[in-house]
């Protein structure tokens, strides 16, 4: 009798973008006659430079090998494939420095299994969080989250429990939970990874949040650029409905909760919570003035809890394992772990979940192994298109919510983009304004017009036609946009521009 063999081939956007679907098709063909071999389409481990990363489990031992730049189309039998695999020095990914140096609390399941395998989800503590929440009741659920110290991971780092308490305290028959899955920041993909590799944890987290605040209907607002995440969420919602984990009387309790998946239509601003609500309501994604806060008057004028994907997925982990798993790390606004997304010009890019306080040097060299093209690192942009560019001499700053605010920036959604020394920083500054010009919702003038003027001014600097007054004008423009824009789009677009003027002054030339 031959030992059963499991071959894991990831089904996740990044892995598929470098050919994992093709490998799966080929192996599927080769294993037609081999009943002892099964193929599992798992999620990705988030170590993207290894993708497509194929693993084989035999006798409980699981090892993997990178199939990047490897052509398997000529293989004629599965024996040949296995032979080739064994010769490639396969290793256990859990023993790599990249994974070993991480503290994966929210991303503890990614890569392990078929993301839609509900039994595996249960086996790894799935729905223990919701059970706990049901056991302790609504207020204590919110208290537990408060004690964990969790702040929103979407970008604004607002205390999650305060939002929940506000929604809970509203006297209203109808309340909503809305998950912001419009992950539009350049250089971020952590929400996508959760949705593609562990969708149940997001849905369980949403269910906990809904129970906590007393909502019976939820929305996931997913950007249209993520078709694979749409597939996984659609399937996951279907499966959970069929198992009574969504819908009426969840886990036998008198609690009803449904989730509707809404797909965006290519607008960056719809990731701003009030614009997102407009879009869910079927309108143009124009930003609303605040107050009223969404927690008091949100979707369809009802109290609405709006959280980012990672924030909601964190609730499952916190309720399952207790508040301490988060509160043991960090202080202030930077409590728990943060999923950083290391990308751009980097050898080993991917998902890095670690406690706050890691430095850019540690991230770039200990995790990332330097730039992809071996050129010196010149700058890092942190926190998406509204985030600041940092020069090498600040790479020892511990990354926390507070330290980035001190640097007049924002940790945002945790994107870290590495640039080498061939980067033209003036063009990067221009792009910040250009992006704002293209994505502004147009409601307020400083954002709509200011960004156009910003592009023009930086263009002058780039072309060498700027006079001294133009630089002063650019600084004044930044101040106007910052202080008078309706939302963070116009208000924070000056951040990258100013950081380049401050830290790369000699490069802000033609």
């Amino acid at each position: 009798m031959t030992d059963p063999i499991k071959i894991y081939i990831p089904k996740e956007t990044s892995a598929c973008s470098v050919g994992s679907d093709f490998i799966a098709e080929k192996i599927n063909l080769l294993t037609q006659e081999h009943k002892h071999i099964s193929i599992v389409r798992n999620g990705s481990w988030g170590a993207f430079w290894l993708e497509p990363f194929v693993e084989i489990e035999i006798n409980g031992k699981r090892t993997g090998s990178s199939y990047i730049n490897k052509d398997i189309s000529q293989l004629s039998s599965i024996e040949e494939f296995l032979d080739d695999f064994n010769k490639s020095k396969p290793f256990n990914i859990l023993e790599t420095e990249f994974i070993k140096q991480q503290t994966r609390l929210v991303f503890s399941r990614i890569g392990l299994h078929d993301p839609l395998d509900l039994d595996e989800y249960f086996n790894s503590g799935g729905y223990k969080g919701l059970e706990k929440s049901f056991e302790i009741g609504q207020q204590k659920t919110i208290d537990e989250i408060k004690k964990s110290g969790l702040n929103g991971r979407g970008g604004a780092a607002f205390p999650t429990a305060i939002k929940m308490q506000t929604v809970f305290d509203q006297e209203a028959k109808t309340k909503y939970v809305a998950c912001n899955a419009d992950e539009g920041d350049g250089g971020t993909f952590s929400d996508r990874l959760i949705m593609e590799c562990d969708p149940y944890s997001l849905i369980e987290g949403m269910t906990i949040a809904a129970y906590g605040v007393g909502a019976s209907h939820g929305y996931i607002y997913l950007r249209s650029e993520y078709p694979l995440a749409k597939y996984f969420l659609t399937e996951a919602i279907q499966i959970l409905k069929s198992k009574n984990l969504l819908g009426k009387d969840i886990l036998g309790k008198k609690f009803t909760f449904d989730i509707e998946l809404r797909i965006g239509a290519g607008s960056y601003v719809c990731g701003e919570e009030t614009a997102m609500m407009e879009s869910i309501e079927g309108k143009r994604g124009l930003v609303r003035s605040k107050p009223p806060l969404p927690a008091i008057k949100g979707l369809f004028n009802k109290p609405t809890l709006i959280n980012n994907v990672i924030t909601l997925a964190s609730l499952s982990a916190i309720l399952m394992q207790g508040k301490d798993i988060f509160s043991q790390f960090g202080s202030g606004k930077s409590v728990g772990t943060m999923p950083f997304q290391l990308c751009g010009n980097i050898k080993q890019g991917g998902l890095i979940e670690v406690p706050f306080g890691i430095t850019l040097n540690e991230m770039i060299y200990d995790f990332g192994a330097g730039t992809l093209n071996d050129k010196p690192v010149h700058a890092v942009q942190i926190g998406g298109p509204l985030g600041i560019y940092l020069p090498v001499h600040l790479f020892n700053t511990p990354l926390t919510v507070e330290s980035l605010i001190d640097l007049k920036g924002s940790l945002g959604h945790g994107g870290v983009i590495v640039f080498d020394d061939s980067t033209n920083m003036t063009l990067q500054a221009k792009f910040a304004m250009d992006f704002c010009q293209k994505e502004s919702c147009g409601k307020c003038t400083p954002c709509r017009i200011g960004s156009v003027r910003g592009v023009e001014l930086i263009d002058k600097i780039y072309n060498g036609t700027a006079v001294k007054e133009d630089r002063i004008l650019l600084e004044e423009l930044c101040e106007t946009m910052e202080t008078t824009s309706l939302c963070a789009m116009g208000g924070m677009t000056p951040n990258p521009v100013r950081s380049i003027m401050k830290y790369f002054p000699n490069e802000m030339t033609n």
Partner: protein
Amino acid sequence: MFTAWTEALKNGHQTIDNFKLSIKQIIQPFVTVKGGLIPALHKVQKEFGFLNKESIKTLAKSFNISDAEVIDVITYYDDFKLEKQGKYIIKVCQAEACQSLGCRELWDTLRSHFQLEQDETSKDYLVTLKEVFCLGNCALSPSVMINKDVIGKANPEKILAYLSTRQNNSKND
């Protein structure tokens, strides 16, 4: 603006009335959904490739709003199209992570190869070229999305090879 709508009529919709009827059926499930206009627009566009004058009129009537209000929503969102699009919609990421590995050059090369500018469609309706900002594949930059497939570590050769494989497969079908 709506010059290409007659194209849809060729696809088995013999008369305008028939066309309106089939759109009505498509959007029916969304009419009672709160905020159902955007899902309805997605569905109509998926079926017909773009949103023409007749579909706008039908949507307006079904949702009990004016034509202008439907157009108001359509024109806000990048994904919604008033013109027929190419068989392959090539979205080239131009966001920061991809910039760090040369997406601007990739964009220039593809523009000159296809002789298309931003958001233009080739005359044979084979290719639409678009710049987009972030496909969420930032650790394997630069990224390009063709219809629903993301191509990581993209270069012009990879894009053209992908297109020719697809074209050959669709000819053999």
